[in-house]
């Protein structure tokens, strides 16, 4: 009986050692996610959406077209004709999946308009809003106004150019 008891205790001890060598695991079940959205495209039609300072005589300076399309300045050199001033229209084309996304219009750099070798600066390009919250529509728009530089000593003609609009979202 004694021998049997001793063997039994030995077996239990061995079992305990084995258990101690086995690591205990605890597993956590985490969640991962991501949201993929379609891109927002900045569009502007040069034939219909251009920032247009309208018609003026040589010598006009500081002509402003605000983002509502209203023209001012020009020191009396402004001419009202069929070439109606307007603000630029910028279209943010997008899919409905980005509705609610806030788009920020970055500062618009100055540019120039030219006719041949003649150049006139365009400055203070200002959007109607620096942020736009996208809707479920296919596009959301904003406008851009600006200031035309001094036309003194510039040759008459039709001046044109472009400016870059960058949005972040």
């Amino acid at each position: 009986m004694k021998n049997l008891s001793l063997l039994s205790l030995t077996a239990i001890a061995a079992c305990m050692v084995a258990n101690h060598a086995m690591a205990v695991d605890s597993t956590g079940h985490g969640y991962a996610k991501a949201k993929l959205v379609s891109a927002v495209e900045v569009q502007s039609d040069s034939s219909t959406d251009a920032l247009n300072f309208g018609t003026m005589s040589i010598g006009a300076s500081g002509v402003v077209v605000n983002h509502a399309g209203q023209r001012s300045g020009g020191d009396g050199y402004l001419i009202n004709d069929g070439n109606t001033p307007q603000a630029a229209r910028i279209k943010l084309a997008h899919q409905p999946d980005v509705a609610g996304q806030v788009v920020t219009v970055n500062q618009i750099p100055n540019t120039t308009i030219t006719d041949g070798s003649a150049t006139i600066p365009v400055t203070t390009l200002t959007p109607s809003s620096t942020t736009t919250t996208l809707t479920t529509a296919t596009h959301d728009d904003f406008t851009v106004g600006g200031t035309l530089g001094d036309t003194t000593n510039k040759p008459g003609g039709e001046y044109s150019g472009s400016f870059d609009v960058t949005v972040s979202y």
Partner: protein
Amino acid sequence: MKHLLSLTAIALCFCATQAMAASDSATGNSKAKIIAPVTITAVTGASGDLNFGTMLSSSAHVVTVDNANGRTSTVSSMLVDDSANAPHSGVFTVNNGGSAAVTATLALPSSATVSNGTDTLTVNNFTSNFPTGSGNINTGDTTVMVGADLNVTANASSGDYTGTYNVTLSY
């Protein structure tokens, strides 16, 4: 009658002898070490899900969320700054209910997936702020942060992708 009584006495004596067995005894010792469990539990929701945030898939890129809520991409222009879906590291709470620190190792998955319907993206290169190899887990609660890479394939379908991953603490 005398003879019969004698037989009865012998029988009783025999029975008594049977009842008195030889005995021996020994006192055995046994022991056990019981330790409080250490558990690791995911913090769920916006404050605990591993969230890669919002992004474009116009071109293939790899989005990395580190274990401190930071996010980068191999094509940074693909990232969308969406305050309603801010990137976030995965968060787990490790609880040591015992009275002494425990040494443990944390095993991260080699890869996992997030999916949206039949579209699937691979998540890999998991990282954590738990010490590489093994580390001590003090008593009470400890927060473990997990990061990973999301491999966005070019022109992957738009939508909300979700998935799960397991981390295992061994001690």
